[in-house]
């Protein structure tokens, strides 16, 4: 993974909160995925969405993650450091008790995981977590 710069960096609506920036090619892929989901609308950092990830993932093959955004229509998860950043989109129907879901994902290495919720009023909120992915010593 080609780290260009650390720290907040205003590259576009999707990137302001990332602390670990992906390489240029991946950056474009992340921006495209965000644009496809938001239609280019503003994405705000908000308390309206919670992204739960482990601090250290013992193995990148199976990393448990949860997302929750009360009142959301759908939530998209991106793994900004993966060769393909798309992870999944959860769309909640009328019988979803909470707009929340848990799953297990693959992370290719230490990276920022992004969750963006599309709210019922058409606004978008985002949460970003850094997940450290350990690649084993001898257990490989």
């Amino acid at each position, binding site marked *: 993974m080609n780290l260009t710069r650390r720290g907040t960096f205003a590259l576009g609506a999707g990137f302001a909160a990332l602390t670990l920036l992906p390489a240029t090619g991946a950056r474009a892929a992340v921006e495209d995925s965000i644009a496809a989901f938001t239609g280019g609308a503003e994405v705000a950092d908000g308390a309206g969405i919670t992204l739960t990830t482990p601090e250290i993932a013992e193995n990148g093959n199976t990393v448990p993650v949860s997302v929750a955004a009360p009142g959301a229509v759908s939530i998209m998860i991106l793994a900004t450091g993966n060769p*393909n950043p798309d992870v999944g989109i959860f769309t909640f129907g009328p019988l979803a008790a909470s707009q929340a879901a848990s799953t*297990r994902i693959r992370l290719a290495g230490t990276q920022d995981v992004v969750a963006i919720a599309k709210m019922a009023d058409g606004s978008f909120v985002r949460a970003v977590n850094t997940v450290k992915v350990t690649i084993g010593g001898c257990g490989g």
Partner: protein
Amino acid sequence: MAEDVKPRVRVPKTAAAGETIVIKTLINHVMESGQRKDSSGNPIPRQIINRFTCEFNGQMVLDVTLEPAISTNPYFEFEAVVPESGEFKFTWYDDDGSVYETTEAITVG
């Protein structure tokens, strides 16, 4: 990968009207990402489950678009409201066109 794919779901047998229940689902599937190469160096083609839906008595609870970054043996946990007795229907859609389905009844009362 249509053979030997068995979904498992955990749904309570009963609930009060309007109660929130937790649903867990697991299905065995390699979720071949398309990133791996075989021993000769040839890419192994992508084959994943690309969509999962949960419906109750015909109404949508959850609709998930899965990408190759979802782990092998996809697992989902989520909550549903149960307004009345009925049946949950769970459906997984494979890249190769296979569709895997299972249902669970729940009684309200």
